[in-house]
């Protein structure tokens, strides 16, 4: 420590280590707030229609069932915003089970909230943003569970996941069959 070169290096190393501790403590203090649920959560599926289209990328050009889901979404995420939050990613997924494939999860609609002023989401009668089709050619009229889920992305720390799992927030609706 008697010359400048041997004083600079330990000094800045200690500063970096303390910086790491600040990040650790912000993550620790933030866990309680980001695992809360949104205060208002109303999610409804009003209409599902299934049509047959042909999917241009397959070779045999067979027809495939495409589903169109109309939803009402109303949620309030302001209680999840802390000083460590950068964005909240909200999405709607559908889960169902078929005899050949045990777990299917398809994302239907998503949005990103970056500011606390826009954290109240309201979308009435929206169609799904992303197309909904099965890995086999048809749905065969199975029951699909529609769930709203969110990911809290922090400035420092881990991404936290949450979903609307209570029975009144989920929505179970069967895919209608096509009468051929």
């Amino acid at each position, binding site marked *: *420590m*008697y*010359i*400048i070169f041997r004083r600079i290096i330990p*000094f800045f190393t200690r*500063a970096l280590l303390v*910086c790491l501790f600040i990040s650790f403590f*912000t993550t620790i203090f933030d866990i309680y707030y980001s695992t809360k649920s949104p205060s208002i959560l109303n999610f409804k599926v009003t209409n599902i229609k299934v049509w047959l289209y042909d999917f241009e990328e397959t070779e045999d050009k067979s027809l495939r069932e495409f589903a169109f889901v109309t939803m009402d979404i109303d949620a309030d995420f302001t209680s999840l915003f802390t000083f460590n939050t950068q964005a909240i990613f909200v999405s709607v997924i559908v889960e169902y089970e078929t005899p050949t494939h045990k777990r299917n999860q398809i994302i239907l609609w998503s949005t990103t909230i970056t500011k606390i002023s826009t954290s109240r989401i309201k979308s009435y009668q929206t169609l799904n943003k992303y197309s909904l089709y099965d890995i086999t050619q048809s749905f065969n009229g199975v029951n699909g569970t529609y769930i709203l889920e969110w990911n809290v992305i922090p400035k420092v720390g881990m991404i936290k996941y949450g979903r609307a799992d209570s029975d009144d927030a989920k929505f179970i609706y069967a895919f209608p069959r096509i009468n051929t």
Partner: protein
Amino acid sequence: MWFEWKIDFEGQKRAELISQVGIILFAVIGFVVGFLLQNLLLTFQIFGGGIFITALIVLPPWSFYNQHPIQWLPSVQSDQDKHEPEESDELKEKST
């Protein structure tokens, strides 16, 4: 060398103490203020400013770090200086 910025041993103790206290103090102040005002950028701004101030205090060789200069012992005359003229005298005597 003037660019080495030397400080003595008592000064090194003081510099280490000031650097430790300064870094931890500004980290704690920054975290508490940022948590109360709910602004993470403010935490790191306070911490960065504090590091800069502490570096200004610790790194250059101020005069209060050089209050106890090192006492070097006086240099010792080695025995070789006494033997050399005697050997050359002996060589000169043999040659003549």
